[in-house]
């Protein structure tokens, strides 16, 4: 879809509202559902915003041996995650920054964010930081093949790695999109979303138990405004992974053109799909026990194997 400058501005504003501003709310609803499933009342769905405000007004305590990377990393991580976020089409079948990057670029930007967090976590010399960092990059190595392979199932069918083109083609083909390859790849990518956004059985976003934490371990030494920025980036990454899933595998309802009515419908569909998909993550948290970390290669290997099966189906079966 050719996107004019005005359309791009409209899409950026919409994306900022439906994805950036709603990302903490998404986390809030996930936690709330999880609490309910565990027979707890749970915190308000607005709690993530309150936490962010709290951290923003607190002082920063940093390690006496810290290097300048401590102060730089949170801003870089957030900026890079935002860049990736604006490459994903949400309400319309065009990314707000059309032509700035395809799905490989999104993967690359997420890797850049991970690189910075993991490096900064080593800075304070705390064993927890090293542990979280080591775990995060190791698990990411298992996630990334499945992530890329599941996404290129769609890219191979459409003949493009451009996420806007993939979403447009998927939405246009209606229920015809539901081929065996597509369904299998969707399952593979769902596993990837669970793992990449740090939910059971891979990680637990709410834990601070040293033996089990992955992402939280890396942030243990961060505080104040730096923690706030890291947490915004974490909310955004979760929203981004879900948005990627929706754009590639459940694109129905996405606006095919930049006009008021399709866009309004697109917003409604997207927010509904996003919150609903978020409940899936809550279900995973509540119903699936966390796996031993040494069992993760099997779990994530299933995702990579499913993605390969989907690709084989795409290549060998008649279209």
């Amino acid at each position, binding site marked *: 879809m050719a996107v004019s400058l005005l359309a791009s501005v409209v899409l950026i504003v919409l994306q900022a509202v439906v994805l950036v501003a709603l990302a903490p709310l998404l986390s809030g609803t996930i936690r709330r559902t999880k609490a309910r499933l565990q027979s707890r009342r749970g915190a308000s769905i607005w709690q993530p915003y309150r936490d962010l405000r709290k951290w923003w007004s607190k002082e920063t305590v940093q390690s006496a041996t810290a290097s300048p990377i401590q102060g730089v990393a949170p801003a870089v991580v957030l900026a890079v995650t935002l860049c990736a976020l604006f490459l994903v089409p949400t309400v319309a079948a065009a990314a707000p920054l059309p032509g700035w990057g395809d799905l490989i670029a999104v993967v690359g930007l997420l890797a850049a964010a991970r690189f910075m967090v993991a490096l900064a976590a080593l800075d304070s010399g*705390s064993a927890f930081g090293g542990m979280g960092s080591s775990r995060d990059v190791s698990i990411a190595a298992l996630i990334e093949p499945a992530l890329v392979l599941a996404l290129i199932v769609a890219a191979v069918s459409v003949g493009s790695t451009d996420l806007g083109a993939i979403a447009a083609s998927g939405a246009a083909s209606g229920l015809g999109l539901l081929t065996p390859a597509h369904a299998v790849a969707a399952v593979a990518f769902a596993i990837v979303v669970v793992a990449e956004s740090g939910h059971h059985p891979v990680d637990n976003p709410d834990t601070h138990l040293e033996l089990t934490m992955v992402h939280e371990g890396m942030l243990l030494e961060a505080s*104040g405004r730096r923690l706030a920025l890291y947490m915004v980036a974490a909310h955004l990454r979760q929203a981004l992974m879900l948005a990627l899933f929706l754009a590639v595998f459940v694109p129905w309802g996405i606006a095919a053109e930049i006009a008021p009515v399709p866009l309004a419908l697109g917003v409604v569909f997207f927010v509904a799909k996003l919150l609903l998909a978020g409940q899936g993550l809550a279900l995973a948290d509540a119903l699936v026990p966390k796996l031993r970390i040494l069992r993760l290669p099997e779990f994530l290997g299933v995702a990579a194997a499913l993605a390969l099966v989907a690709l084989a189906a795409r290549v060998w079966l008649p279209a």
Partner: protein
Amino acid sequence: MPAVEIADPAFGAGLESWLWAGGLVILAVASITGVVESHGGRAPRLSVALSALACAAILALGVLLLAGGSPLSAQAGSVISFAPVDVHYDALAGVFVIMLGIVGFAASVAAWDGVHHAPFNAITGAAYPVFLGSMLLVFGAANAFAFLLAWELMALSSAALVVGAKPVHEQVAAGYLYLAVTHLATAALVVAFAVLATASGGSLAFADWSAGAATLPPFGRDGVFALLVLGFGTKAGVFPFHVWLPRAHPAAPSHVSAVMSGVMIKTGIFGLIRVGLGVLGPGPDAWGLLLLALGAVSAVLGILYALMEHDLKRLLALSSIDNIGIVLLGLGSALLLAGHGLATAAGLALAAALLHGLNHGVFKALLFLGAGAVQAAAGTRNLNRLGGLARTMPLTALLFGVGAAAIAGLPPLNGFASEWLTFHALIGTGASADLPPVVRSGALVAVGALALTVALAVACFVKATGATFLALPRSADADAAHEAEPAERAAMAFLAVLCVALGVAAAPVAARLTEIAGRFLGSLPVANAADPLAAVTGGPLAAGTVAPAALGAAALLGALVGMVAMRRGRRRELVRATPTWTCGVLPEPAMEYTATSYSKLLRLFFRRVLLPAREVHVEYHPGTSIPSTMHYTGGVTHVLEQHVFGPLHALSVRGSSTVRRLQNGSVQVYLAYALIGLVILLAVGR
């Protein structure tokens, strides 16, 4: 260095020829200066300065060749009447000449200060400029004789540099292994060249070989291709012919390691393109699939073994195997696509391989120079004894960090651009409906391998950077480190700027490379070549775009806004420094994650490949269960080395010593041999 004798009348016209001849002459002078100057073990500063000057000329030559200047031909002195040393540089050679110019220049500049870290003698002082010059000749050789002459000169001079001026056992062993392996590889090349020359009516010129190769039967072509892959793959450090590389590269002084890893292993890639692809043509699918398989295995195992390493320079050397694997993935897809007539896509795939080769030269040289600075400053390159160097050497830390981010393939740096293109080459191969399903599946599996490699590279270089520069120093030497010397810093800054520049300005560079690759593959210049990162729409390649410059600018702007917001805002950010919380005791370096503990999880995840072994030895205070001392040894098993190459090596040594009994030094025995020989000759020749 052969005497330069200008015979070709076309030679001597353009600026290119002056740069070429000037570069070689300056290197020859530098080589002589190296002998004279380093006689007393002093640093041959004039020699490395001349080498830097020559490399600047070589860089200019490469840029001219790449930018579309006329190709350069010359006949540099006929050593033997039937085999003139012909050189011919075209734009494709220009890519490699640029790589040599950039890396050689930076390494020579760093050596200005770095030479006092590594003792020099007359041999190593002379060998370094010869090493640089021989690579220049390899990239231009137009016939088999010139090629093998330069190739051998390169092997011998680099072996001298590996062994070094004051060799210890480890260096001699590394040099011996390197020489043995590289000569086995050269033997494979000589056989392949002999077959091709025979098929071409005895001509040694590469230009005559294409017609001759076409007359070979299919199995003959397969055989020649296999020999070329064996010969060039060994030089490139492709798995499983890589055994020499992780030993030889770290043994050399760091500026030499930078040139070896940055440029020398690319001569293998150059040979595969020039002779493999250029003479034999794309060939059957099996060739491309073989390269894809070798590339995928090299990439994944190279980075896995690098991750398990705690010697910084060995880690970097092993990661070169990974990057050569990525280059092979691009080359393999180029072969597959060209074999099915998809010239446009094949050009893009070949450009991906060329660009990644160039980029790897830049960031790997940067990282090796950084490792050299660290080794000089902290007295060790063992990651488990480093740490905290960001405080004492902040600029080195920053520049090394740029190199680490580039090699990890992070946007907007150069590693990302070429890996992006490689992803597209593979996805394009997988998405082409014109290709057989086996080929498409192979390419798509390779996508998974590349994704795994890139993610493991992030882990590897977070570990390398973090363990070296962050947290508390793990040894007194690391604590007492100092910033790198000015020339080293300048050389690293030059390379770091190139990492950024080749990343954000990847589109024009890739466009030019695609054009060159397309012309090399005998096709028209690529459509939409102005911006090949905006890949060919509607063509067989999966379309997609990336704008690294825009993404980089946006990320930078966002990060700056974020930092200003953190510092300022309605209330200023309050920052208080306290010791790291370690559950109530004071933090100590022993509490930190080391390089070895950092990679433990991956060691266990991939235990079936890495076969980790560890041994813990505990001694207790007498009569108690309180440990007094603990010894821990651990490591991974390099299966191929220990179970295949080790026994082979032992066998060859045993065989040699058996044969040596024939040479017992007694004159009577030699006379007896002569008599027996004479009798046999008379009997046979009767």
